[in-house]
């Protein structure tokens, strides 16, 4: 599922160096401008994308669709499933919002400021992403479990879900914003400052619009990862129905009971949620980028 979302978000908002999309020129008739090489490239891209993403996704939706609309409604009407969906989506949204703020700040610090240990921080920022998720769960459990050296007993509470999701999704926005920030010319900011713009205005009118596409792309990745997370949660959250049970555990329960159709229905509902959020992020991103 994540790979699909990556595909979708890359299509939706690639971070161009200027962070601004070139304005599209509208043509009355579509013209084929593909050279032989470009055609080959497009072909390879489409075949690869179809094999890996489109066909499996269609299969999931087809499997879910066998029960018609009632299949979807029945799945959502189950209180336990509904609780899992609301918990997962709300936690994913919270974590994504946190990431938008914190991730951008971390990226800013890493690009614009010089401090001792900066290189090290730059490298280890990827650790939560590279770590096998079950290991992440283990690490978090020893940090926030009953033997917590920090005195925080968050294991098996909804806080644990937030924490695990925040941990595994941290690198996404940092890594998408960082390169854009590096390419951003400081000259423009200086020019704006010399023309009398305040620091806040510069951030609002110059920096933020340039970063918006990157932030949106990172936010989409982080949201998608959060709603599909399983590994780091199974140990830490306790999987208690109505309290800390997330959608992926529900899907697994359906599969264990041989209800592949319900599992597929729930999976495609989450897919729809992810698409809605990605589209919403893209719209917001365009609005912000246009203000620049």
């Amino acid at each position, binding site marked *: 599922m994540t790979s699909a979302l990556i595909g979708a978000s890359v299509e939706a908002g690639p971070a161009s160096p200027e962070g601004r999309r070139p304005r599209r020129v509208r043509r009355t008739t579509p013209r084929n401008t593909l050279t032989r090489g470009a055609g080959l490239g497009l072909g390879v891209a489409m075949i690869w994308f179809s094999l890996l993403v489109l066909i499996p996704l269609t299969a999931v939706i087809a499997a879910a669709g066998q029960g018609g609309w009632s299949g979807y409604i029945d799945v959502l009407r189950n209180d336990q499933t509904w609780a899992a969906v609301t918990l997962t989506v709300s936690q994913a949204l919270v974590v994504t919002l946190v990431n938008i703020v914190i991730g951008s700040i971390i990226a800013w610090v890493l690009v614009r400021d010089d401090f001792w240990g900066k290189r090290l921080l730059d490298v280890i920022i990827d650790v939560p992403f590279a770590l096998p998720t079950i290991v992440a769960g283990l690490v978090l459990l020893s940090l926030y479990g009953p033997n917590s050296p920090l005195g925080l007993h968050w*294991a098996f509470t909804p806080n644990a879900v937030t924490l695990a999701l925040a941990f595994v999704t941290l690198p996404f926005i940092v890594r998408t914003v960082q390169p854009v920030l590096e390419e951003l010319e400081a000259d423009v900011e200086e020019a704006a400052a010399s023309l009398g713009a305040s620091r806040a205005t510069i951030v609002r009118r110059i920096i933020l619009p340039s970063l918006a596409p990157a932030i949106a792309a990172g936010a989409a990745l982080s949201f998608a990862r959060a709603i599909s997370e399983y590994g780091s949660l199974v140990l830490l959250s306790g999987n208690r*129905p109505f309290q800390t049970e997330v959608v992926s555990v529900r899907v697994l*329960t359906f599969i264990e009971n041989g209800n592949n159709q319900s599992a597929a229905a729930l999976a495609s509902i989450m897919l729809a949620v992810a698409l809605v959020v990605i589209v919403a992020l893209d719209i917001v991103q365009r609005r912000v980028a246009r203000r620049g």
Partner: protein
Amino acid sequence: MKKTIKAAVAASVTGVLALTGCSAAGGSSGSGETISVNAFSVMEAANEPVFDDFEGTDDGADVTFQTSYGASGDQSRAVVAGADADVVHYSLETDVTRLVGEGLVAEDWKDNATNGIATSSVVVFVVRKGNPDGIATWDDIVEPGVEIITPNPGSSGSARWNILAAWAHITGNGGSEEEARAFITSLLDNTIALPGSGREATTAFTDGSGDVLLSYENEAILAKQSGADIDYVVPPDTLLIENPATVTVDADETAQSFLEFMTSPEAQADYAQSGFRPVVDGVGIEDVEGANDPADPFPTPETLFTIDDTFNGWGEAADLYFGDGEEGNPLGIITELQQTTGQVGEE
């Protein structure tokens, strides 16, 4: 430029990790016969000495084993999806029944001396070192304030043994269904976590959470063998856990003779070293390290319930207790109780 290198490094690291994941499932290949063994996770370590001993027999002289281990349900579903398997060994019968339904295992697979069962264990309470809360019986764990960890019976098939053991404690001793429901409700009220699998539950417990872990005797012995600072209690009445094994319809005679070897006294003695109770008589058991009393590792509980006698077999129990209420399935009793206790806890 720097970024590109870093990305390349990250990509290759991910690739290497992915490859290690794959290769772990593959076994060694060599000349002679190959037997594909498809089993639940805990058997990975337990099977090694059994393989070695089988290779020492006439039938097993040139045999190489190709192994695949994982969660019981996942393993069984993988075989349905086409994974190679000659001998299958799962934690509960429904995973074999699934293969029978697909025509991959003969209908009469249970027609042998052990009723198709290859290994067995019992449901036990794992407690902190020295049993500070003095937990001895089922009634002790539902006392207010006792924190229970048990694997999730929804997503983990083998976790269902634990909950059924609690149910059998009431109905097997003459209690009514109402009383059993009340007992499970108080048990679920005390449950602080339902980790995904038996091993994950052990990890959560040894990390310091909870007062009691509902687990399997072999899992408790294994944890003690690997140095976990825990004790375990065999309650006076508990449920016999029976792990079935059989061959697939395509398996050859070598696989069949390995299946028979699995229930031989020699192999059962090997399994006993990993904490499994023998399924046949006349097994010479040496001291089992990690057991409460290594010289008498498997004390017989006063009352031992079985899935066949107390619950009429898994065929009936699976839907009656654990059905998820989807697609026209009945809503299982345990599933329903989990939902009600969960909702009450939420308010």
